[in-house]
């Protein structure tokens, strides 16, 4: 049984979660932890820290660019762990690290889990990690280091696979709102609502959060009717990209959603 801030959050919190994605080292290298603090102050519930990658194939332009800027700023996994040393003295929100598998492989799989546990993050999202690999090599590490692993489900994912993902997960299930890369903002359509309903009727053991295309108060609130929370990425990156006053921009952004 994994027991960390993330799993406890969903047991203890009555309101739907507002989960915000930010890219480590963006807009400038040392913004990572101050952004976490501002998100906490502003009232966000969970944070996903993106570990930048040169070739983010599931991401649209906004997150692609934030990845590129972060890499130009010199962000690496090693630097991120250095920045996160001691951040728990200030930040109590559940935090997940999200990123493509290659940088994690180069860092060393076990070393990555060990250091993630050491700085006290709560989980990982590795969208291009195959389930079979996860079961074989990563699941034992998640248990050993008390970290949640979160998997994506798309509208095309079939029921058997969703059940399998639900079985393997302790944390939440990431419902990708429509088959798309990040940052598409077409709003939530009837087709997507059918899909959210279909998933809700499956009565999964894990809570669900809806992400991709959640960009404003309307889409956030609609998503929260069908899941235990929603995830905002590109819209947040846009909101802070040009900000002269990060805490103020973040406060304004979060308040605009509630």
């Amino acid at each position, binding site marked *: 049984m994994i027991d960390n801030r993330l799993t406890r959050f969903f047991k203890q919190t009555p309101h739907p979660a507002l989960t915000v994605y930010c890219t480590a080292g963006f807009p400038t290298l040392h913004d990572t932890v101050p952004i976490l603090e501002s998100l906490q102050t502003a009232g966000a519930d969970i944070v996903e820290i993106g570990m930048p990658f040169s*070739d983010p194939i*599931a*991401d649209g332009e906004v997150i*692609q660019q934030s990845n590129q800027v972060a890499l130009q700023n010199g962000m*690496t996994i090693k630097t991120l762990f250095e920045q996160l040393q001691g951040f728990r003295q200030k930040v109590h929100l559940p935090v997940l690290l999200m990123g493509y598998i*290659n940088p994690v492989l180069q860092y060393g799989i076990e070393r990555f889990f060990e250091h993630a546990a050491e700085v006290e993050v709560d989980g990982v999202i590795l969208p291009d990690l195959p389930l079979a690999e996860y079961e074989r090599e990563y699941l034992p590490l998640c248990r050993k280091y008390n970290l949640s692993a979160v998997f994506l489900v*798309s509208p095309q994912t079939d029921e058997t696979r969703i059940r399998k993902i639900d079985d393997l997960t302790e944390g939440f299930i990431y419902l990708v709102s429509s088959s798309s890369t990040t940052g*598409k903002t077409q709003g939530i359509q009837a087709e997507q609502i059918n899909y959210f309903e279909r998933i809700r009727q499956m009565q999964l053991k894990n809570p669900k959060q809806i992400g991709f295309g959640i960009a404003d108060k309307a889409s956030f609130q609609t998503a929260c009717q069908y899941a235990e929370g929603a995830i905002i990425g590109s819209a947040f990156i846009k909101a802070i990209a040009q900000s002269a006053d990060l805490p103020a921009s973040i406060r304004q952004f979060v308040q605009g959603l509630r």
Partner: protein
Amino acid sequence: MGRTTTLSQFQVQTDGYYGKFGGAYIPEMLFPNVEELRQQYLQIISDAAFQAEFQQLLHDYVGRPTPLYFAKRLSDLNNTRIYLKREDLNHTGAHKINNTLGQILLAKRLGKSKIIAETGAGQHGVATATVCALMGMECIVYMGKVDIERQKPNVERMKMLGAQVVPALSGSQTLKDATNEAMRHWINHPHDTHYIIGSVVGPHPYPDMVARFQSVISEEIKHQLLTKEGRENPDYVLACVGGGSNAAGAFYHFLDEPSVQLIAAEAGGLGVNSGKSAATTVLGKTGVLHGSKTILMQTEDGQVVEPHSISAGLDYPGIGPIHAHLYDTQRAQFYAITDDEAMQAGLLLSRMEGIIPAIETAHALAVLPKMQYKPEDLVVICLSGRGDKDLATYMSYPYESA
């Protein structure tokens, strides 16, 4: 998933790996399409009606079998016996159409109506646009902005054929970035679209599927050598490796013939230590890009390095997982060929045999003087494509003496 050994240790195993390399490292949004392909590709391509249509089109439309030409003057120069497998004589001028034809027939049977592709040199883009015109399917080709500029004739051919050419503006604006964009497009259009990958790269089953469609190259070599030389197996097979599809096709039926030495030419760019190179096996280490685990040029932190080659078709930071495995097991030998060596070899073939090769292909030719043969050896070079698309680069190249 259990691992069973299929035909050969050099073929893909049932779990999608070649030794340590391969697999399907893809985000969930691509999983249903790739999984559908995985479940169906073997059945579809072994179906008799599929094979009949494929073989007939290879013959009547592509112009197969391609000749196996004894290059007498080149042989005399190298004091051995050299055959050129003339993939340049295929319709559209390269081996790429063997694969695009196979994949579009498969896409039709999967009920898809739209095709996307990435391209580097534009040969795969042209071959895709061609079969889309043939089958009346919509075609979008992603191509790096840099490549659009250096392979202009092929961009115009794609447009003439009715394809939409979309510039990839991210990263190094070459093949890797075009592949990223094609994958993103597929994520956004999962229902009606098939992605025709142009080499033995990508998530399983692509590397195996593309290798099977290209394996006609070595199948023909065997028959042709038997007729011409009384033996099926050459002593050497040489091919260039971008992603490695022409090499996979040329090696395929020789993988389990240890007497046949397999030689791969990678793009050394300005030299492997120059920082401007695409010599993946020299400069890379194990990593994951575009859905498979392979040898990858990357920083210590796992960021993909932007490669350099004068040839757009070899300007890629990885190689197909089958080649990573052939390298790892030392079944194939890899040579890094510099831009200059390739350009010289391209000029030499033009002047000695009256054949202007693609600059990609010229990398394979440039291996010739680096090896030692016996006069009676049989050396087969996969002449993967013709050089029409490269004339501007050849003509403006600062040859020391021409």
